[in-house]
């Protein structure tokens, strides 16, 4: 990969002029990308939905990777895409999903004066940082080429190799810092584990206990087997239609409880009566009254047991 990156660097970047100015191609790249980045960053500032804000940040980061490559830092450009955009921002998105993706942020400010103070702080920072940059006098930019690279940073052909150069420094002068950063990463991983760890307050319900519970529930009307599936009629193979037991009676438990609560369950008795009629040689739909669904809904509503605690648990 390093060979590919270095060759890409060689082709993508243009050297600096003798006065330390960037080349025209780089200038075009910059002036195209910079507005995108600023707009995307403002998207982070103003987007109502967190996901949109995350997408803005991703945009900033990817364009930033372009600028890194343009600035003779192809390795960092790749890392920016792989680590930042690929790993860190994905982590952000995961957490967003975990926390609730539709929780859109109200933009109404609740702290008095905070918005003005923030504006003052932001503009102030912009002014002082810009001021520092503008007023500072830099020497003419030297640029990065074979003459400024460490010896270990040159490949076999004598061309500068960015990953090799970084490696030479990171594993050379910054070896200890690298070790410490490794320890930091391990600690951070452990810290995340500890922070998100949940203490188990009740014993885990394994298969054995489930079996025992179901056998015990048999006495109070439970079943050992899975409940019957709903909708087993020729014409009404639907979720809201109860199944018929071997005795020809509808099995109430076969319809989803949620449908019952919502009142969207079909009346089993109606279907049972129709079956009886069909078996007796009559027409199935003959007696279906126009108002039947309403009655059925009412019947279903009185039938069901709106247990508030169980509703709470469901939600």
């Amino acid at each position, binding site marked *: 990969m390093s060979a590919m990156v270095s060759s890409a660097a060689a082709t993508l970047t243009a050297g600096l002029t003798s006065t330390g100015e960037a080349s025209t191609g780089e200038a075009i790249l910059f002036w195209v990308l910079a507005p995108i980045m600023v707009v995307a960053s403002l998207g982070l500032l103003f987007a109502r939905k967190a996901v949109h804000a995350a997408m803005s940040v991703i945009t900033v980061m990817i364009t930033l990777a372009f600028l890194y490559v343009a600035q003779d830092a192809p390795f960092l450009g790749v890392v920016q895409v792989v680590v930042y955009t690929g790993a860190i921002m994905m982590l952000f998105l995961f957490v967003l999903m975990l926390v609730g993706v539709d929780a859109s942020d109200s933009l109404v400010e609740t702290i008095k004066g905070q918005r003005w*103070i*923030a504006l003052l702080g932001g503009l102030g920072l912009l002014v002082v940082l810009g001021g520092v940059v503008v007023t500072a006098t830099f020497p003419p930019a030297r640029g990065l080429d074979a003459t400024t690279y460490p010896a270990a940073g040159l490949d076999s052909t004598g061309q500068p190799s960015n990953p090799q150069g970084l490696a030479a420094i990171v594993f050379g002068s910054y070896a200890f810092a690298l070790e410490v950063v490794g320890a930091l990463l391990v600690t951070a991983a452990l810290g995340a584990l500890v922070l998100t760890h949940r203490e188990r307050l009740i014993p885990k319900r394994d298969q054995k206990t489930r079996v025992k519970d179901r056998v015990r529930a048999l006495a109070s009307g439970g079943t050992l087997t899975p409940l019957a599936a709903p909708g087993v009629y020729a014409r009404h193979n639907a979720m809201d239609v109860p199944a018929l037991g071997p005795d020809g009676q509808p099995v109430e438990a076969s319809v989803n409880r949620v449908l019952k609560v919502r009142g969207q369950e079909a009346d089993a008795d109606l279907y049972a009566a129709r079956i009886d009629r069909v078996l007796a040689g009559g027409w199935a739909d003959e007696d279906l009254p126009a108002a039947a669904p309403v009655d059925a809904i009412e019947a279903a509503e009185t039938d069901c047991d709106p247990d508030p605690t169980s509703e709470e648990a469901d939600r």
Partner: protein
Amino acid sequence: MTTLTLSAATPSAEAVAPQIASGPASAALWLILLPAASAAVLLLLGRRADRWGHWPGWIAPAASCVMGVIIAVQLLTADTAERVQHVDLGSWIDAGALNLRFGLLVDPLSVTFVLLITFVGTLIHIYSVAYMAEDVNRRRFFAYLNLFVAAMLTLVLADSYLLLFFGWEGVGLASYLLIGFWNHEVDRGHKISGAQALENSVASKKAFVANRIGDLGMIVAMGLLFAQLGTLHFVSVPGQAQGMGDLGVFDQVAGGGLTTAMATGIGLMLLLAACGKSAQFPLQSWLGDAMAGPTPVSALIHAATMVTAGVYLIVRSQPLFDLAPNARLAVAIVGAITLLYGAIVGCAKDDIKKALAASTMSQIGYMMLAAGLGPVGYAFAIVHLVGHGFFKAGMFLGAGSVMHAMGDETDMRKFGHLATKMRVTWATFAFGWLAIIGFPFLTGFFTKDPIIEAAFVRQEGQTWQPWVFGLVAMLGAGLTAFYMSRLFFMTFEGKSRWEPEAHPHESPRLMTWPLIALAVGSAGFGFVFVFKPSWSWWPGWWPNLADWLTPTVGPVAHHEPVVHWLVITVVTLALVAVGVWQAWIRFGAPSTVVPRTAPVGSPLTVAARNDLYQDHVNNGLLVIPGTYATRALVFTDGAVVDGAVQGVARGAVAVGDQARRPQTGFVRQYAATMALGVVVLIVIVLAVQI
């Protein structure tokens, strides 16, 4: 008084250096250990020893007494130069510059005291067996009495001021415990009501506190001595290295180790200590209240022995006082004032024990006066002290016998005519009475008259002193005769003024025998041991107390009094006769009616009944200002010290109240503050750079 003059003129050796004790004297520690062990056993065994507790209680001092007699005989038979012996018991305190040996000084002075304490003490212990027979706490009583005897023996046998102070505090503790012995309601034996118990414990506290004031003097004196001389031993410890720091106090004083001013200061501090312990003016107010204790306690501690410890201290410190005539003069003045003070108070008291206490105060005033007179009086102070120990103890025990008979009544106005009912008590009390008033040829005559005579001696550089001291001592003799006769007549003569339920009876033998023994002492002690006749048949080897004390207090210096001794004796006797006669007219004669309730009396009488308002003076001068000073301190502590602390705290709270306003709990606000801070910082940095 020719005879006395002769005895005083007997030449004697100069101060005798101590030598390592040999023979019985080397076991002197057992004098202390026996009663101490008895006290420890009685206290540690507690109620288990109740049944037999009085046996070790009286046997221990009796054994000490036998030992004391043996040691006395040993010293008597030895040469004069060998009469000061030292028992070294090892190193006591060895802390850098302070190097004290634990040792006992067995010399004529301490042995005299040992004999007095153990002999009178044993008699009083035996008396107490009967006196306290009904009391449920008799065992504890004996434990405290033994503790007292041990501490008192430590005091007199000590070879250093520090060990003396140890015993000094020990007797103070025992005194405190015994004055307040009936400090709780008791209904068996001695009936003590709650109010009475409270009064008793207040009395014990008063004695304790008054004694602490004296102790302060003792501590300061010891500190000065140590700072000046680097030692607290009286005399050089024999067998120890004799470098300058190892010399005893008196040796260094003799060698010029102290300036006169310093000696005066130390002497005054020792006088303060003596005033506290011996109830001398102005610290005398506790003694009257101390009569709240059981009567044997009054007899032993507050008449015969402990209260004389101050006199012992002064006489023991004689080399110091010889160097400081002004301190000695102060001693004499204090003695003279107390002498009159006690006598005046004694004339007015109706409580038999308090009258006797006032008398004790007065008699100790005589001793202090004698001690303050210097070489002409040291020996007489001790002589009178011993004689007083006999007759005053006898009279206190007699008073206890009377109280025993009258159901713990102490008001003399409810006595009278007891002579017929209590023959033994009456007879023994009569001997004590005659002895104290100085009836010719009884003990007081031989012990007190020399003091009066010595008070009339003009010493070098003195002007008014002999006349003042002499006349005061002489007047005191007359007053003594009056108040003691008043006491005697009111109790035993005249008409009976008993309470209807009183059935006076003679006390049991266990109580009367000690009375008889003390009466014999009161009558004969002076003639046998003080009087030194020039008759040819009188054995020349027979001990004479004044001569016997010479190795310790030096020979009795003899000077002619300003008035011829015969005049003094005659006038004194005349005054005594007048006092007795007045008392007889007013309180004794069969025709006299003594009212059962005290008449109003003259202002002087009222003042004397109130101890000449010493308590009021103390209250006004010390207690009330002290109370207000304490309140002011408490107020200052609350307002200023605590106020400063609380003010700081309030300030911190106020600052915190302001500081918490920005603490809204909104992270974003904190972040905004930080951001603005960063901006400001960068601006400052830029501004500085540009």
